């Protein structure tokens, strides 16, 4: 069970959150220009590292806001939490 520090509400139980997958996946600037391979990468391929991973969470049971977390997928340790639009902390 994860204890996730929501940037607005503080540390709360994982059961209050909804998982949103990899963070910082930008919608293509010019979708019509993408090749099939590039579309496939945008739609279906996400990083799956065994180690630090920047991901999105939504605090569905409280403030209902999205934010980003850097979590180590090998240990589940949370290295950083930051708001949507902020850059991923370099230290993580």
């Amino acid at each position, binding site marked *: 069970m994860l204890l996730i520090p929501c940037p607005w509400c503080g540390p709360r139980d994982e059961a209050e959150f909804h998982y949103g997958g990899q963070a910082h996946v930008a919608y293509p600037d010019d979708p019509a220009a993408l090749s099939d391979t590039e579309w496939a990468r945008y739609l*279906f391929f996400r990083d799956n590292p065994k180690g630090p991973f920047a991901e999105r969470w939504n605090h569905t049971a409280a403030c209902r806001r999205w934010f980003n977390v850097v979590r180590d997928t090998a240990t*589940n340790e949370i290295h950083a939490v930051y708001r949507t639009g902020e850059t991923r902390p370099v230290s993580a």
Partner: protein
Amino acid sequence: MSTDELPEHPDRLWNSPEPKSSYDVVIVGGGGHGLATAYYLAKNHGITDIAVLEKGWLAGGNMARNTTIIRSNYLWDESAGIYEHSLKLWEGLEEDLGYPILFSQRGVLNLAHSMQDVRESVRRVNANRLNGVDAEWLGPEEVKEVCPIVNVSPDVRYPVLGATYQPRAGIAKHDYVAWGFARAAAAMGVDLIEHCEVTGIDVVDGRVRAVQTTGGRIAAGKVALCAAGHSSVVGRMAGVELPVQSHPLQALVSELLEPVHPTVVMSNAVHVYVSQAHKGELVMGAGIDAYTSYRQRGAFHIIEQQMAAALELFPVFARAHVLRTWGGVVDVSPDASPVVGLTPVDELYVNCGWGTGGFKATPGVGWCYAHTIAHGEPHPLNAAFSLERFTTGALVDEHGAAAVAH
């Protein structure tokens, strides 16, 4: 079956050789799929210069952590093809391997709890029959006949409106399956090498040449990945990105009970699946934990939801105690179907993306993957499960019949 009927094991089922410096085929991952692949490479294709490399102990990953359910009632033709091929192999596997696997065709019920469930289920029964897969649609009273302890009262929150039933489905003893494949493969000359972790994959001029391991460099004519939850990790060593995400999938068993549950019951809507092991434990699973993780442990609230569902379906479980819980790391693909076939690197093959359903495919994927590796092109039954389908868009969207929420 009582415990005194279980077979005795010999002291050793396979040798533990030191790795040679070179093999025709190196299989990365000594789980059920890796062992079955080695077995069919040797048996069907006469290739015996094979090493199966396992970072831990043989079949100690997902093979030791699953709920052992075997069925082939999938929706799409491609899935029905490979899973039914697997089920037919299961039906003769004990004789083929010369080893007991306790394959028990006790049937599987997939419950429907809403009109949408009912429509989807009846559609699937029809699709199964068109593919030569045994399937029936049962009403609530017929469900009760197959499994008397299921609560079919209309007064519960998610009443049982019926179920699909595949009588040829069942369970097997997962450890014995692995040991049977290992023993038979080793007898044909396959080297099974435990505690040997792959740390790198050498690719020269677009062709795989060797694997780097904790036991040194091993040259390889062909390299076949069979690493389940760690497929992304080993794929990346060769510069191959795979469209899978690794998630914990939890299971649990009760204490030993008298025979009470004669079949396999799955419910996708309230989310639990239950069978009773030969020894007597109730074996239960649920869906994956939502977040990606390589930890073989998930969150407790998943177990709570699963137990709540189990108690509503099986009120008789209220006095049973949980004996132990555990998790495996499963590799989930975007269309809930596996990726089996060639990669952009010559002579490097991939078998991954089985998500929550890999155990039932063990002999079938071993058979097809061995063909793919031996011939350098897919077997007809795994041709649709190529890596290219994510570019071409020819997905095998099996979410509805995967039976576990991905």
